[in-house]
């Protein structure tokens, strides 16, 4: 199968999405919409959808960490002042070309691989991929072995070393389990946008787009069609759901 094959069974989705409400971003931080079309609460997620992100490194400002702060607030991630072991779902990375000294800045997070190595190695089934492509840890059954952290090529996962004093009820997190970006699944299931994408837009950078890459009419698919979107470490053949421009 080709690495860019994100279009499986689009036809069925197009049929279902004929009634989808129109929603449009008109300016950074501003959303023009009628109704946010969310899946009914009693309906299971479907493989007719694949959630993804497109990140434009040209728009990502070096030094800006709006996405990181938004993620931490949204998911109740607090620092213990121990950077080596603090949990981190999204981080800013600067890439510098040694020859030209050219630097680019980008957010790095779980790439929501179509063929996720973290799922392959998990001995308990705690690491899994939802039908809509979002890769999660079921912390109810995670034993904290951290195999998945070793397997992930993107250093996307963290281990909760210390007791978590919960501050949010939509994202239960606890000591002794592995965690990573959930693509704000609690928001997405209700028709919302991940907190980082929203924050980037509010900071007027608009470097991140979120959407359904199987739906040809979504903003992300249009942008991908027009500009392409590269995978980091495409050589691994994981078909990541998070794509980048300008790398």
């Amino acid at each position: 199968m080709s690495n860019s094959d994100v279009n499986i069974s689009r036809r069925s989705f197009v049929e279902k999405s004929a009634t989808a409400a129109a929603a449009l971003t008109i300016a950074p931080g501003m959303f023009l919409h009628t109704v946010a079309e969310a899946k009914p609460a009693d309906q299971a997620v479907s493989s007719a959808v694949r959630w993804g992100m497109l990140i434009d490194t040209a728009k990502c400002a070096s030094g800006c960490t709006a996405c990181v702060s938004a993620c931490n607030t949204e998911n109740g991630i607090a620092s213990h002042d121990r950077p080596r072991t603090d949990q981190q779902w999204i981080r800013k990375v600067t890439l510098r070309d040694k020859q030209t000294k050219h630097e680019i800045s980008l957010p790095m997070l779980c790439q929501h691989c179509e063929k996720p190595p973290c799922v392959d190695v998990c001995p308990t089934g705690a690491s899994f991929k939802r039908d809509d492509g979002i890769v999660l840890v079921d912390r109810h059954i995670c034993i904290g072995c951290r195999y998945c952290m070793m397997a992930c090529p993107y250093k996307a996962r963290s281990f909760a070393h210390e007791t978590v004093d919960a501050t949010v009820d939509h994202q239960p997190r606890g000591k002794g389990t592995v965690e990573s970006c959930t693509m704000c699944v609690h928001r997405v299931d209700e028709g919302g946008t991940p907190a980082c994408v929203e924050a980037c837009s509010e900071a007027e950078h608009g470097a991140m787009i979120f959407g359904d890459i199987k739906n040809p009419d979504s903003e992300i698919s249009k942008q991908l069609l027009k500009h392409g979107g590269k995978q980091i470490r495409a050589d691994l053949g994981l078909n990541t759901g998070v794509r980048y421009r300008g790398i």
Partner: protein
Amino acid sequence: MQQLNKRMHNTLITIAGLAMLVFSAFAFAGEKPSFAPKVPHPTNGSTECVQPEDEMKKNHMNYILHQRDQTMHQGIRTKTYSLKECINCHVPENSEVRFGDDKHFCSSCHNFAAVSIDCFQCHMDRPMKGKGTQGKNPHTAQATPTADKTTISTDIADTSKSVQDTKEAGNE
């Protein structure tokens, strides 16, 4: 000697039987045995749970477990059997009472029955009622679909080779 032993045995059985009768008469005297824990009722004044009380007492864990797997793996987010809704309904908002305290809805029984649960090592033991997330902004710019077949051909290059030096900004 054997005769005497037998008589003593019979007497003992009779005494035991009488004691049981007397005891059970006391036990049934009141409506409720006094040692049962007092479980806090819903804060919204409702007197009915999502299932009859007896059923909930016996099987609430099965309902919650079933819902847990459905929510986690299939994104089914109905509220009826969600743990979050137990808390929203049975623990007063802005409550200072935390899990572990005899007054907490879950602890009131679990402490009594000496059943240790680890739900609240991760889950909130008091209602948040949506605080902490806005989460409603739409993400999709969807028009009425016209074409049913488009090819997305993304340029997939091996970016690993162009990345020569990286430095990472730490978590805040």
